[in-house]
């Protein structure tokens, strides 16, 4: 298979503690980012509708028109659905633009579907997430149809960018010490 995100570091943010493997029957929800068609056309469209000098300025697309530009090719949809069905994955839902699939499946299925993935639970206070510290691969013939699979490596946002003044003072004093 091919690793779609070989360069994705796995870094549990501070405070998240490993709480062990997740049982094979437990459900996970994975998000498959399907390869879009028409991204070059989308680039041109964005330029045309956003550039005030363009005659198309402000002529924005509806979600249906956007779907017609970016929806994956029939070959992509066919290949991905066939792959999912061959692993018994049927609880999937798409979005209006047809370029994402959210699928729910037991951990055992997910680990067969994405060889390499190993689902573990991490906890922080009352919160709990399921992630894989190991990289996943997809079958070689699927690699051209999927951009990445979400729900394996990235943790919930830890960094909203609000800070308190006292924290800034801390940075300032660190800066002064360094100077």
């Amino acid at each position, binding site marked *: 298979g091919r690793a*779609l*995100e*070989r360069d994705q*570091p796995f*870094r549990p943010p501070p405070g998240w503690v490993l709480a062990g493997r997740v049982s094979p029957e437990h459900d*996970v929800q*994975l*998000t498959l980012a399907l390869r*879009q068609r028409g*991204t070059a056309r*989308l*680039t041109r*469209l*964005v*330029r045309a*509708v*956003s*550039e*005030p000098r363009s005659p198309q*300025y*402000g*002529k*924005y*697309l*509806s*979600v*249906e028109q956007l779907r017609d530009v*970016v929806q994956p090719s029939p070959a992509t949809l066919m290949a991905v659905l066939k792959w999912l069905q061959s692993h018994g994955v049927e609880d999937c839902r798409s*979005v*209006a*633009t047809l*370029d994402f699939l*959210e699928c729910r499946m037991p951990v055992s299925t997910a680990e067969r579907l994405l060889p390499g993935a190993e*689902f573990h*639970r991490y906890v922080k206070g009352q919160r*709990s*997430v*399921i*992630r894989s510290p190991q990289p996943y691969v997809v079958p070689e013939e699927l690699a051209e149809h999927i*951009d*990445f699979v979400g*729900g*394996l490596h*990235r943790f*919930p*946002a*830890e*960094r*909203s*960018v*609000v*800070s308190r*003044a*006292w924290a800034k003072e801390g*940075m*300032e004093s*660190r*800066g002064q010490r*360094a*100077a």
Partner: protein
Amino acid sequence: FHLGVMPSVIRKRYNMTREDIGVLPNNSQACAQFLEQYFHQADLAVFMKLFGSGFAHRTEVDHVVGHQGQGRAGLEASLDVEYIMSTGANISTWVFSNAGRHESQEPFLAWLLLLSNMSALPWVHSVSYGDDEDSLSQAYLQRVNVEFMKAAARGLTVLFASGDDGAGCRRVPGGNHTFRPSFPASSPYVTTVGGTSFKNPFMVTAEVTDYISGGGFSNVFPMPDYQADAVRTFLRSAPKLPPSSYYNSSGRAYPDLAALSDNYWVVTNRLPLPWVSGTSASTPVVAGMLALINDRRLQRGQPPLGFLNPALYRLRERGHGGALFDVTQGCHLSCLDGTVQGQGFCAGPAWDAVTGWGTPNFPLLLRALTAP
């Protein structure tokens, strides 16, 4: 004289009058939360009671998309809602609450899926969240960037906070330092908001850089055409730049503009809290103003602003240079090493990598962005 930034201070500094409020029922604005950051309607009501005199405003969020928890209010959520509704006053406001309902969901991805799945969305979105660009895979970065292009094609204005670590810092193999850009701030298809402080912290004065204001150059996304002239002018004319080994001068440069980010008052869990700072504060302030400009555009039969940057970077050449207060003093943080000694980029005339084009002068920005 004031004891911290509150709506009256922002509205005075940016020349917003009591008439500068939304009037259209079909205009809306939104902020997105990704932590278990819940806002409380009661906090908003207390905030507006304490700080909302002087302009007509709403005291309730109209629409929460996602799960609204019952726990303690989060500072980020309180800040975002209270300030987007202070500059985008009297405009219908949505909150996207994406804490991640399932243990294996990525909350940020869940928000992107919502955008791809809803046919009717607010025109302006404010997001105060970021990751280090180098902490994300290329496949993820490129695809999320396409998601912002999709939003732009639909006419959505998506604003991201530029971050609170200045230019950032990272040790690369070999032991040297480089700056550390933040994503989505570094996406060429979002508008990124930096931060400023008052020159005199207790008066409504001119602004200087807030030294935490995130800014710099992407190591992933090339510089888009719309900003090439402005950024090259900055690189050519800045009196002092960090060594070129610290940043990728051909990358997408940010922020695009800025607003006050220091010393805000926020009501959270019904308590007024002073000294809240960060580009989390400046971003909803700008978002609310852009929603208000959309209100005026829609009244005139013009389309909403959509992806702002191509228009923003042309304001000067179209004779609207006064639409933003140029912030020219101060520098932001970076690596604490012997070479740059904690200093990243510095502000200067026109666009710079700390405050972008500067901060809004609302009436002139409104005039510029509603001009035929």
